[in-house]
């Protein structure tokens, strides 16, 4: 590994965003816009930060920021199957204090829907590329709405217009401008704003490779740069023109050199200008940041006059918001809310349910057909074990990969919801596992019935029920295995390989491919803790133990098992009964889930987008 290079992303940036204003951060790509927002919102995971971010004169901590600010990310991470109201309701139930009555929560959701002009689509599904739903602009509004639920006084937005067409983008900014007029502080990054958007922005800052080249009212920008000797040509969007001016042109060496010089001069000019010095307004009250207060105070003493009164009021507001935010619902409520959402989303995704049912039926019919018309002679003994083994492993094998993938796809929103402290991962996983059981049982039902009838297994109630129970248990254990793999491993590929390696180790030691008696003694414990072996054995006990085989045609009568019990003995499946098998399956479930819990506690669930 080569030693990591340090890279200074932001350089001595000072600015103030005021309430009632729509402030934009502009700059070419790589100028540090998003990083600046991340720092303000306490969402940086790596890197050293020096300097201070003050919120109404208090140095902000993550808890304070979470309680009074909303951070809207660039991409909409919404669940396609929920309606607008459901999406907002879900967040409201988790984010609003538990002292709120459900009526009040509903009212808050309605307020937000009305404020963003989403009334006409309140009961429309969000949708995505495959499901018809909201338009891009409406989706962006819902993303913003999620963060409006706690009535934040500060809203941070990363590129709210990216990927939207010009009308929609203009409309979103108009909405934001209205929100700002109601007394909120809105800070957004924006890339290449069009002129109509530019004209709605109150104040703006241009960043160039991490340092400020302009910060001030939007309508003074052209004059400012003109005074520096860079007038904006006619019929050219001033934003485009000045952002280009402040960006390094990489297309040739001399251009790069030249643009660097210009940027340097712009930066120097700005540091010296009135815009920069007049805006440093900061003071600090809390004890823990006394030092930083002194630092700021020493830098700009004039800013600290007569604002003390207002400050205490501001502080009180902040504290109240903070207190309210600590009062969020507990684990049980979280679990319940997530469970309801999970059931809602899963049951709405009926194409997926249907395809899984068809999948189960296909597997089932395939297996049943292969083992149709089983005889009771010596040659068929292996086939009897074959059907027991194959019914145990066929379905789980397909389920494991699918579920690992699904878990990794869910990280797409899980990661961000966890980062927004919406709920605890433990509540999420329990809700997820429990929520799946009803669907799981339906699939197993469709898997068992054709298989059982086509292959012509024992047609009594006890055997049929046991068959269903054992298969459900073993598939459920496989699901736990998949969830464990997904929780432990960083990417889907690795998790898939990991789950498959475990599964093939289990497969080989389950007693069908290799005889349990010939497994070397040092590794026989592997088959004792193997849940597939136990479900294989349980099925064999239920279905094969009572069979009688016809040994008359046998070439070597001595090795022909005439009873099911002898056959079981030949396969090394004679020690242990159904109780032991149940313990084996249950033990595996407990172990897998315990590891899963440990995994999600300590391993961050970063989504893997590619």
């Amino acid at each position, binding site marked *: 590994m080569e030693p990591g290079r340090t890279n200074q992303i932001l350089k001595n940036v000072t600015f103030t965003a005021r309430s009632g204003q729509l402030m934009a951060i502009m700059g070419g790509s790589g100028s540090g816009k998003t990083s600046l927002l991340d720092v303000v919102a306490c969402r940086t995971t790596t890197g050293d930060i020096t300097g201070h971010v003050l919120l109404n004169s208090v140095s902000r901590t993550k808890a304070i920021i979470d309680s009074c600010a909303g951070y809207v990310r660039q991409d909409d991470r919404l669940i396609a199957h929920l309606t607008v109201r459901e999406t907002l309701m879900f967040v409201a139930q988790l984010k609003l204090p538990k002292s709120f009555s459900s009526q009040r929560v509903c009212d808050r959701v309605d307020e937000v829907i009305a404020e963003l002009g989403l009334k006409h689509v309140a009961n429309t599904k969000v949708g995505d590329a495959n499901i018809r739903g909201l338009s891009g602009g409406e989706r962006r509004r819902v993303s913003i709405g999620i963060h409006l639920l706690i009535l934040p006084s500060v809203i941070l937005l990363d590129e709210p217009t990216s990927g939207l067409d010009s*009308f929609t983008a203009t409309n979103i900014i108009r909405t934001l401008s209205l929100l700002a007029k109601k007394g909120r502080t809105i800070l957004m990054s924006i890339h290449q704003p069009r002129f109509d958007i530019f004209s709605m922005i109150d104040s703006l800052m241009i960043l160039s490779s991490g340092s400020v080249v302009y910060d001030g009212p939007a309508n003074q920008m052209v004059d400012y740069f003109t005074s520096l000797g860079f007038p904006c040509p006619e019929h050219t969007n001033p934003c485009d023109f000045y952002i280009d001016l402040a960006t390094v042109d990489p297309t040739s060496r001399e251009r790069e050199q030249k643009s660097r010089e210009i940027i340097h001069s712009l930066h120097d000019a700005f540091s010296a200008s009135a815009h920069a010095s007049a805006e440093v307004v900061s003071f600090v009250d809390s004890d823990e940041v006394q030092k930083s207060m002194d630092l700021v105070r020493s830098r700009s003493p004039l800013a600290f006059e007569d604002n003390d009164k207002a400050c205490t009021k501001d502080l009180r507001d902040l504290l109240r918001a903070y207190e309210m935010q600590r009062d969020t619902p507990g684990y049980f409520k979280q679990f319940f809310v997530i469970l309801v959402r999970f059931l809602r989303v899963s049951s709405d995704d009926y194409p997926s349910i249907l395809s899984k049912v068809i999948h189960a039926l296909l597997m089932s019919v395939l297996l049943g057909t292969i083992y149709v018309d089983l005889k009771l002679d010596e040659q068929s003994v292996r086939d009897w074990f074959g059907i027991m083994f194959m019914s145990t492993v066929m379905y789980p094998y397909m389920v494991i990969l699918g579920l690992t993938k699904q878990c990794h796809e869910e990280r797409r929103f899980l990661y961000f919801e966890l980062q927004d402290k919406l709920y605890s991962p433990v509540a999420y996983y329990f809700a997820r596992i429990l929520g799946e059981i009803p669907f799981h049982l339906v699939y197993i039902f469709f898997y068992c019935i054709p298989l059982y009838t086509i292959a012509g297994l024992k047609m009594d109630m006890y055997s049929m029920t046991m068959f269903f129970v054992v298969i459900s248990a073993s598939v459920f254990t496989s699901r736990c295995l998949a969830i464990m793999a997904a929780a432990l491993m960083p990417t889907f590929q690795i998790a898939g390989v990991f789950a498959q390696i475990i599964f093939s180790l289990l497969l080989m030691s389950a007693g069908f491919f290799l005889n349990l008696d010939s497994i070397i003694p040092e590794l026989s414990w592997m088959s004792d803790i193997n849940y597939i072996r136990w479900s294989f054995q349980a099925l064999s006990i239920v279905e094969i133990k009572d069979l009688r085989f016809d040994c008359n045609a046998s070439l070597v009568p001595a090795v022909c098992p005439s009873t099911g019990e002898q056959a079981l003995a030949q396969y090394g499946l004679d020690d242990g009964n159904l109780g032991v098998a149940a313990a084996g399956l249950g033990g595996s479930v407990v172990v897998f889930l315990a590891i899963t819990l440990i995994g999600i506690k300590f391993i961050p669930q970063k989504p893997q987008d590619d």
Partner: protein
Amino acid sequence: MAQNKEYLVPRSHSPLLNHININPIADTSSTRSDQENDLGFYQKASASAHGMSTDSRQNDGFQDDSSRNGPMDCVSSQSTAIEASGNVDKCNQHQQDECNNYTKPRLDVNNLTYTIRATSGHWWSGNLLRPARRKQVLKNVSMSFKRGEINAIVGTSGSGKTSLLDVISGRAEGQVDGVVSYKHEQCTRAMMRQKASYVIQADRLLPTLTVRETLTYMAFMKLPGKLSFKEIDQKVQKVIIVMGLLHVADSRIGGAVIRGVSGGEKRRITIGVQLLKDPEILLLDEPTSGLDSFTARHLVSTLRNLAHEGDKLVLISIHQARSDIFNTIDRVAILTDGQLAYLGPPSQMVPYFTSIGYPCPKHQNPCDVYTDLTSVDRRTLSREAETSSRAKEICEAYETSELRQNMIENKNIHSSAYRYHDNSDATSSAQADGPSWLRIFLCLLERMNVHLWRERTRLLGRIFQHAFFVPFMILYIGRVDNDMGGIQDRMGLLYQTVQTGPYIALTNVVAIFPVLRETFYRETHDGLYSTATFLTAYFVHALPFNIISSTLFSTFLYWVVGFKADLLTFGMFVLVTVIMAQFGEMISVGFLGVIRSVQLACDSTALLFNTLAFFGSGLIRSLATMPLVLKRIGYICIQKYSTEILVGNEFHNLQFDCDNEPGVCATGNDFLASRYPGVMEHVTRNFIIIGGYSVLALGVAIVMFKARKIPTLY
């Protein structure tokens, strides 16, 4: 007025006159055009009467063109002298006036209407039951572009930009009414293939190759086979210089994982690939999307140079042109909802729109202002009605404007006489000219090898992944015993042996093939080579790796587990695993051809392999007791034959230890007789069958690729 005069052009001039521009369409300054046409008609023989400041380059173009192309304006091929003279004859006899009147070669679009069948969802959402909606993407569009200029089509998404490029390049899939013609010949796909290159929006390049390698391989596959290596190198070098790629010529292109050249450079490579053939027309779909402003500007100025200095017709579609880009373009067309709202030089745009009542505010980009002005806002019904009526009004205003009148007048002269080019000789000459099949095949093969060689982890996977499976198989038992349980162990191991080969091949294919498939889609779109050539090259490419990896696997497994210690049976064991891997490889490839989603293709292939093994191998269900119908199904499974070879070799003459069961003891022959009767007689037949199957798999893969058409690449 201009119309009348133009008929006065002397008809049998020397071929040189073909290139003299008397086309008044360049004079879009509406008030002066008539006047200039008067003069222009006589003066333009010296190509100097243009109102715009393009005199000098017109001259350049004139000389360039005549020296390079000679008298072949009317014909599609510029390859050989014999052909050329033949075509001149044809010209003189039948189409004289066109040959003479048309000077600067021009691409005309005449009253083009393009209708597609819009489908509103997948077939499973009941789409088959609903009647398909017909949607007019382009409505009666007429425009005209000239060689030596860079033209841009601007419009919001859904305005028909890409559809227009599709129609021009001959890729339209819907119903096309109206005529697209180049140099007065109706454009056909074959003709456009020769004269035009279409640069699609996505860069599908192999990340492991360097820029120069990418271009060189493409040159080998694109350029005439008679060119020597040196000439090809020179051509490639020229393209590298023209596209400004000299500083990265020997860097790898890179992708998501490996860092390589920048996005702008990738776009340049994609364009460079299309320039190798030296096309007359270059069509680009959104070449600047995804690039930052400098890179975009730099790219457009390169394209402008190509048009002006290389005398090409460059036509780009662009979503949002910033003012700096906008001003470098010679002519801009604004499309809205499939209709033309403006076509003319950018400098005329503000005056024109101001004259019809829409001035442009001072600090705004006219291109943004006027695309917004003409586009339809569909968010609310009232807005839609309002904006669409405005758009309609503007389009109508344009219809009657002088700008358009000039263009139409100029075109109507010959609108009756489009030649329908006989494209059969175009294609045949193209084929005669192209590189030989062997050259393409070797080039593809070498490129695949180089690609894999550079992807070290994939290469290691290819070689060792199969053998990596052995420890899992033998972990629990070490060596097979010779007691009764040993029968079960052997059958389990042989089942795994038959199955792992195809599976490992599948995982390798999933890792390696999708990138190749992407490049294949792009290149076969360009008509470089056929599906069969590509897949045969892949077959040959994969075979040595399957031989090596399966041999490793077999050696490891066979001797550690302790199968029959006999070199001949071991050799057969190796051969069977190699053939099974190759079979699996080609079937997996075939599935990737039919199913676009890699995951879904992988799952279906795995399911197919399972099913084949269930029915065929007899290791999961014994064949002897299977109902007859199922047995018949088993006959089509390759696993039946490979298992027979393996089981027969292993169990034949095998003796079991019967110490604990004295007296009666089964032998391997007994086992064979009861479960696989007669296998030892059929070894040769079985080998022929499985060998045939793996070659047949190649054919199946080709058919599967053909069954699913090449996707449209956007």
